[in-house]
């Protein structure tokens, strides 16, 4: 990882910023539009289902509050991981990287449990508009969490083999940008889907 994609080109950077960071920020901008369109679809179709089950029949707010808390904590772990890698403390860097990924997996486990439960209660993609919009929106977010978990575990394994060091702090920082973004999206979804039923 000592050579990054942009390294050879970065003889000078016109802005003084890292190209990879600008790439990630712009990508996040694009992702905002993606989630924005999905959220709009969810809101447009809210209350339009002609058959049940309806959101108020199924949504388990206490349970999701716990998994939301877990995901929030994973962002804290991410901050700690980056701080550790930046100061060259790879031992704790590895611990926090793994913990971030682990809490992400716990969140995903909660989502799998929730989805399975809903299917048992008779809500699938095809049941009604609530089923379609709910599974698509939270599923897209879950897929983003899954990509983040794979990314973080890859960084963790690299660190295990000594191929991720203080010099690659920016790589961890960029993964962190992505992770925090996915976390923020969930806060929005949690508010719109669960709190404002």
């Amino acid at each position, binding site marked *: *990882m*000592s*050579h*990054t*994609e*942009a*390294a*050879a*080109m*970065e*003889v*000078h*950077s*016109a*802005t003084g*910023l890292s*190209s990879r960071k*600008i*790439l990630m920020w*712009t*990508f996040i*901008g*694009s*992702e905002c*539009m*993606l989630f*924005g*369109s*999905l959220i709009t*679809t969810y809101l*447009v*179709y809210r209350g*339009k*289902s*002609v*058959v049940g089950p309806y959101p108020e029949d199924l949504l388990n707010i206490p349970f999701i509050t716990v998994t939301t808390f877990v995901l929030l904590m994973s962002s804290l772990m991410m901050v700690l991981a980056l701080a550790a890698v930046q100061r060259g403390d790879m031992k704790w860097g590895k611990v926090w990287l793994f913990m971030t990924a682990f809490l992400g997996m716990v969140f995903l486990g909660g989502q799998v449990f929730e989805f399975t439960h809903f299917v048992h209660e008779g809500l699938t*993609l*095809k049941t*009604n*508009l609530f*089923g*379609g*919009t709910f599974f*698509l929106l939270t599923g897209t977010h879950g897929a983003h969490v899954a990509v983040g978990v794979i990314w973080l575990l*890859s960084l963790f394994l690299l660190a295990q083999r000594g191929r991720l060091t203080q010099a690659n702090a920016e790589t961890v920082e960029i993964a962190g940008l992505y992770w925090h973004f996915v976390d923020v999206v969930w806060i929005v979804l949690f508010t719109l889907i669960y709190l404002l039923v």
Partner: protein
Amino acid sequence: MSATGATAAEGGDHSHEGTYSGGPWSWITTVDHKRIGVMYGLSAFFFFLVGGIEALLMRLQLGSPENTLIDPDLYNQLFTMHGTTMVFLAIMPLSAAFFNFIVPLQIGARDVAFPRLNAFSFWLFFLGALFMNASFLFGGAPDAGWFGYANLTSTQYSPGMRIDFWVIGLMVLGVSSIAGALNFIVTIINLRAEGMTFMRMPLFTWMTLITSFLLVIAFPAITVGLVLLMFDRMFGTLFFDPLAGGDVLLWQHLFWIFGHPEVYILLLPGLGMVSEIIPVFSRKPLFGYAFVVYSGILIAFLGFGVWAHHMFAVGLGPVANTVFSATTMLIAIPTGVKIFNWIATLWGGSLRMQTPLYFSLGFISMFIIGGLSGVMHASAASDLQQTDTYFIVAHIHYVLFGGVMFALFAGMYYWIPKITGRMLSDRLGKLHFWIMLVSFNVTFFPQHFLGLHGMPRRTFTYESGLGFEAMNLMSTVGSMVLGASMLIFLWNVLRMLRKGEPAGANPWEGSTLEWSTTSPPPHYNFRVLPTVHSRDPLWAEDTGDSMPGDDPSVADPHMPGPSFYPLLSAVGIIVMAAGALTTTFPVVFVGVGVLLFGVYGWAFQPLEH
């Protein structure tokens, strides 16, 4: 693969850096922005001809009333694929060809910020284009229009795989476009030469930057629409099923929130090209540079607030129609600003009447006509008479052919000498221009009247005795000549490759950095990265120390080595697409595996060897 890659890189690492190694493998694995630009250009022009042939077939069918040359089913496929091809497979990648070849040179960089991501964008576009067109061989091409309105696209009304080809193909092309646009945003923001502030950037680079932002912001909306449609077709969701509470207009909103900015994605690169060419051929700097930049930004910004002018006829109500009429008319202001700036640049200049300027002037005049008819149906009341008639067909072709394609041809005549190192024939170029201009107008001007007389678009024939015959025949004859004019261009290019005059570094006495290096440029573009002190560095007096040129005492710069992984990653996505198309999920997983393998190989392969 890595062995081949390493050998190629060794060959290109030291003294031979300036020259290319040949062979197909060096093209397949290239990450050089110039080669990628050439590949974009060649494939885009190929699909431009494919889309053109589709159009000519439709014109043949419409040449006489109650014609039976083409049956309604094929006609639906032709107009759908003509629109889809011209927008996504011809104009956008042709612009991308220029982004790739010209922008890094214009900003004084050696390549784009992420060369392998760039190769990935190209291969994904190319494979996606083949995927979409493969539909012709497997049960017919998409046939629900380039806009794919719900619920015409539902499995009930469109069984079979036609719409699936369209939905999945567009998603693939969207990923390619977004990846390319992200790359160009970072490249332009971060790799500008020393001293090139934003307000010193060439206009084409500016318009590339704005277009890239539009792509990144607009494409997610259509992506979501496509996902909803794919779920409806594949998993039986009810997003566009009115009986279950679904709203077919949601598709139209999502499509046009993308679709109108898409018009500017197609148009702005052309505006940038013309803004480069007119000053060079008038021998004076662009009049009101800042106005042209800011009006470009304003056009892009306003472009997100006008989408419902495509939906005046669906019954959104008088308030919405009034608001969207007003915002649409507002866009005429920044557009008019640009036109006045071009005219003011020409005014009092010492004009050199060569082919690139001819096409630029053709662009301005045709674009004004297209703009005026656009303002006509910006008014909702007027649009209700014109929508879904040939009036709209005339309008869109005055904007996208008379406008964008004339500008793109201006760009081709202007920059091909830089790309190949040889000059195109000016005489043949002017011949091409006059035949194209006249036949374009013969083809499309009568369609205004056909539309106002009530001839509906997207209909495979018309009855005799309605007064449509003469103008349709005229349009068909014009279109055949228009198609033939492309042969003059191809002949000109072939002639140039055989015996074109050497172009030299700066054949047009241009002012921007791409003209400061050789034609074609060396692999590394600039041995010494340039420093600029003004908007027109090659015209400025103080270039003595800032344009060191090709100083042989400086060692060849190291360039990124070739890589097979971008193509492999793109292949993974196409395998996923094929699996989704046929709903064979094992194939999807194979595709995911190939993609993951490609991405990991990519991430761990050093950029330089």
